[in-house]
């Protein structure tokens, strides 16, 4: 397939699939490292402190944004898929549900930002 073909086929649901698949792969690669570092709290606390100091670096802070974004899009993408496949809803019902989820997420994040 040509690049033009891929470009033309990039409709919203197809992009949602790609984002879900790539964020899932990314999280699958990240989680073993995450648990390995957390396990250091029990096995080697000194080394863990070294890692935690490393997370203060600006580039790691920026990467954390990508991590949270990846987690959020994967979670909401997964909920979208579950609703799409397991709930016999009509298209307007799904739009309303997505709008409600986005709004509640927005409100929850606003409260979280006030809390921290």
């Amino acid at each position, binding site marked *: 397939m040509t690049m*033009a*073909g891929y470009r*033309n086929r990039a409709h919203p649901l*197809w992009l949602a*699939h790609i984002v879900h698949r790539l964020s899932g792969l990314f999280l699958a690669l990240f989680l073993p490292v995450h648990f390995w570092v957390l396990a250091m709290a029990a096995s080697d606390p000194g080394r863990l402190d070294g890692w935690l100091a490393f997370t203060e670096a600006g580039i790691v802070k920026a990467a954390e944004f990508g991590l949270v974004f990846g987690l959020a899009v994967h979670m909401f993408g997964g909920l979208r898929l579950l609703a799409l496949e397991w709930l016999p809803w009509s298209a307007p019902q799904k739009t309303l549900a997505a709008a409600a989820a986005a709004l509640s997420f927005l409100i929850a994040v606003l409260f979280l930002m006030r809390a921290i």
Partner: protein
Amino acid sequence: MPQDTIRLTIDRGAASESFDVPAYESQTVLDVVSWVQQNADPSLAYRFACRVGMCGSCAMMVNGVPRWTCRTHVSKVLKGGALQVGPLRNLPVIRDLVVDMDPFFDKWVAAEGVHHGTRTRDDEIAPIDETSPARVEANSGIECINCSVCYAACDTVAGNPDYLGPAPLLRAWTLLNDAKDAGRVAILDAVSGSGGCHNCHSMGSCTAYCPNELDPMSAIAGLKRETMKHALRGKR
């Protein structure tokens, strides 16, 4: 139309060939392909029949997207005066723009897309309630004309040649919801196997590109729910 000719590139086997085709107003992609066959290269192989979007035989990849060429205006898809046309994806190419549709039709049968009658010719015709939810579901998919556009659009078929694909599963869903069809268990068995509905990743290319605006993706989601209920009830 602003320019006098269209630069048409046709995928022919391993190579592709370009032609300058005279541009006219209200021209369809099938018109420009036909112009090449009639004026530039009589050996060009392609299929068409009705030319009005009823038979489904002229489906091709147009700029990488599966379309009915007879119902696609050149002006809608022309990019910088150029157009690329190729044979439908996911099916074996016989020659030039002609694909072998057999694997696609075989999957209709494999998905139990055949009528499982409930009555004999001596019985009365079964009364159908057009407003029942099952009939509404069945009606939503019966306009499929097996053009294979959805099958060519599907990335899951591209990755797994055993996957039954959108149109055969849409047909299975239609029959499952048809009060006149008695093949419920056979259909659910056929669509829940290794090449069945659970392969679908809900990318929605089938629904996005269906020229009849049908919704195979939702039909496949319906099959996923019904096969799951069927399994949980212990194969009743």
